[in-house]
C-alpha cells in the first residue's frame, strides 16, 4: 500500500474535522473582535486587533456569577435525579422477573426517539398543573426518565458475570447489600461518565428551561445567551460569542477531567 492511497483515506477525516471544529474556532475568534470588525469580516479566523471589550461589557450587563450558579445548581439536581432513577431502574430490569419486561423495556428505549417538540406541550401542562412553573424541580421532573442512562447502566450490569450473582445467592447476601456493596462500586466508572454526560447536557439545555423559568433571577447561562441571540440576527454578535465562550468552559473542564471514562462509556452504549 503506497502513500497516495493512505492520503485518500485521510480526506473524510479532514472534511469532518473542519466541519466539526470550525464553528468553535469561529466563535472564540469573534468573541475577541470589536463589533465593527465582526460586521466587516465575520468569517475571518484571526481578529485584526484582538480585544477583550466584549467580555468586560458582558460583565456589566449581566450577573455572570448568578447565572453560573443557577446553571450549576440546576445541572447538579437534574444529574443526581437522573442517576438515581436510572440506577434503580436498570437494577430492576436486570435482576427482577416481572410481566412484559421486554415490552416495557422496548417502550422505554422508544422514548429516546420521541422528539422533544412533541412532548414539550404535554409536559408543560403537567408541570403547570403541579404548580411547579418557575421552579428548578419543574425543570428536573420530566427529565428523570432518561432511557439513555438506564440503557448504559443496564449494559454495564450485564457485563458483570452471572457467576458473581450466583456466588452472592449461595452466600445468601440480601439484595440491598448486593446493590450498594457490589453493583454500585463495579459501576463506578459508568456512573462517573454518565453523570458527566448528564451534567454537560443539562448545563447546555435551553428549550425546556426557557418554558419553565420565567423569572430573570433564576435564569441559566443558555437562557441568557438565548436572549442575546433571539433579537433576530443578534444586535451585538461579538457579545453573544463572548457569552458562548464563557458558557463552554465548564463542560470543557468536566470533559477533560473525565475524558477517559466518557470515551469508554459512550462508545460502549452507542448513544448520546
Amino acid at each position, binding site marked *: 500500500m503506497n502513500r497516495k492511497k493512505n492520503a485518500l483515506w485521510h480526506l473524510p477525516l479532514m472534511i469532518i474535522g473542519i466541519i466539526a471544529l470550525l464553528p468553535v474556532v469561529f466563535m472564540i475568534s469573534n468573541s475577541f473582535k470589536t463589533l465593527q470588525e465582526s460586521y466587516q469580516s465575520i468569517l475571518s479566523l484571526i481578529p485584526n486587533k484582538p480585544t477583550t471589550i466584549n467580555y468586560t461589557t458582558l460583565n456589566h450587563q449581566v450577573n455572570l456569577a448568578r447565572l453560573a450558579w443557577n446553571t450549576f445548581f440546576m445541572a447538579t439536581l437534574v444529574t443526581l435525579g437522573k442517576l438515581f432513577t436510572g440506577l434503580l431502574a436498570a437494577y430492576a430490569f436486570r435482576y427482577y422477573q416481572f410481566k412484559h419486561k421486554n415490552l416495557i423495556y422496548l417502550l422505554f428505549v422508544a422514548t429516546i426517539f420521541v422528539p422533544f417538540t412533541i412532548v414539550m406541550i404535554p409536559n408543560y401542562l403537567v408541570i403547570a398543573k403541579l404548580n411547579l412553573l418557575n421552579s428548578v424541580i419543574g425543570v428536573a421532573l420530566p427529565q428523570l426518565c432518561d432511557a439513555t442512562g438506564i440503557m448504559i447502566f443496564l449494559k454495564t450490569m450485564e457485563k458483570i458475570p452471572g*457467576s458473581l450473582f*450466583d*456466588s452472592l445467592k*449461595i*452466600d*445468601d447476601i*440480601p439484595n440491598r447489600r448486593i446493590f450498594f456493596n*457490589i453493583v454500585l*462500586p463495579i459501576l463506578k466508572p459508568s456512573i462517573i461518565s454518565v453523570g458527566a454526560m448528564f451534567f454537560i447536557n443539562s448545563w447546555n439545555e435551553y428549550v425546556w428551561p426557557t418554558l419553565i423559568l420565567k423569572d430573570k433571577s433564576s435564569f441559566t447561562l443558555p437562557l441568557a445567551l438565548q436572549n442575546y441571540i433571539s433579537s433576530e440576527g443578534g444586535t451585538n454578535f461579538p457579545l453573544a460569542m463572548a457569552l458562548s465562550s464563557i458558557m463552554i468552559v465548564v463542560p470543557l473542564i468536566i470533559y477533560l477531567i473525565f475524558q477517559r471514562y466518557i470515551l469508554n462509556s459512550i462508545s460502549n452504549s452507542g448513544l448520546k
Partner: protein
Amino acid sequence: MSDNNATIELKEITKDFKNTKVIDQLNLKVAAGEFLVLLGPSGCGKSTTLRMIAGLESVSNGEVLIDGDDLKKKANDGHTIAMVFQDYALYPNMTVYQNLEYALKVHKVAKDERQKRLESILETLNLSDYRDRLPSELSGGQKQRVALGRGMAKKSKIFLLDEPLSNIDVQLREKARDEIQSLHDRNKQTIVYVTHDQLEAMALGDRIAVMNDGIIQMVDTPENIYKNPTNLFVAKFIGTPQINVLPVWYQDGYLTMDETKLVKLDRINSIDPKDYLLGVRPEHIKVSKNSESEFSVPTKVTKIVDYGRYIQLTLDLNGQHVIKAVTKDIDCKIDDTVFIRIDERTSIIFDKDSQKNIYWDRV
C-alpha cells in the same frame, strides 16, 4: 451426618430446558465426606447437575436432599453450601481479604473469629502476601486460590467446585490439584467436583460419575471405571490415547477379525456367536518384533512418538485398522513390521448394538 459434612441425594431428578430434557431421571448419592467427581464432555449436563445441588437451578422433577432435607422446602441458609466457580466470581471491587471476609461479615460472624479463620486460610493457601491486592492484580493461579479460600472461609458442610482448574496454566494445575486434595484430606467436607478432564477426575475422586447426554453412565472408583467400564462411551472417554476398538466376531471360543483369530476366550464361553466390539487399551497391546504365539498379528509401524516416559506407536493392520500401542522400550523404525498380541484379561467386549460391556454385570 456430622458437623463437618453432609450427605447429598438426588432422587429421580429431571430438568427440562425449552422442551428438551437436559437431565433425565438422575439418581445419585454422595456420602458424607466423600469426594465425588462429575466427569463428562461439555454439554453433558454435569454443570447443571451441580447447580441444582447448589440451588441455583430449579429442578423440573424429583428431589435434591441435603442431609435428608429437601432443598426446595428449606431455603439456602448461606452456611451449608460453598461453591467455587469456573471464572472464580471474585468481587472485583474488594481486596483478597475483603473477598474472603464479605459473607462472614454480612452474616455477622464476630470479628475475632473472622480474623482467626481468614489468617489461617491465607496462610494455608500462600496468599498472606496478597491480602490487600485486588483480583485484577492477581494471576490466574492466585485468583483460583482466593476463590478456594472464599469457599473454605464459610466452613460449609458441602463444597461444590465447577471446573476450578480450567482457567489456569497447565504447569500450575498439578500443584493446584494437590492443594485441593489436601484441603479435602484435612477438612473432610463433602465435595462434588465438576470437570471434563479425565486425568483430574482420576487423580481427585473417591468416586467418579461419568455423565453423557444428561444421563449418568457409570459411578464407581477411578480404578473400576478404567478397568471395567460399563459401556463404550465410558471406555472411550477415559484414557489417553483412546482405547482401541476393533470389530470382531465370536465363535467357538475365539474372537476373530477379518478371519484372523485374535483372542481365545477362556473366562466366558456362553456368549452368542455374533458381531462384537473389542476394546483394548494401548498399553495392553503387546508389541514384539517376532511372532510369539498363534494369536500374534503382523502390523506395520506408521508413526513413533517418544514421550520420554513411554513410546507411542501407531500401527496399521491390513491397511484397514489403526491401532495405537503404548510401550516402554521397543527398537523399531517407521514401516517396520511388528507383531501385536491381545490378552483376554485385558480385553473389554462390547455388544455391537447396545455398546454395553458384556462382561460388566457378570463380574
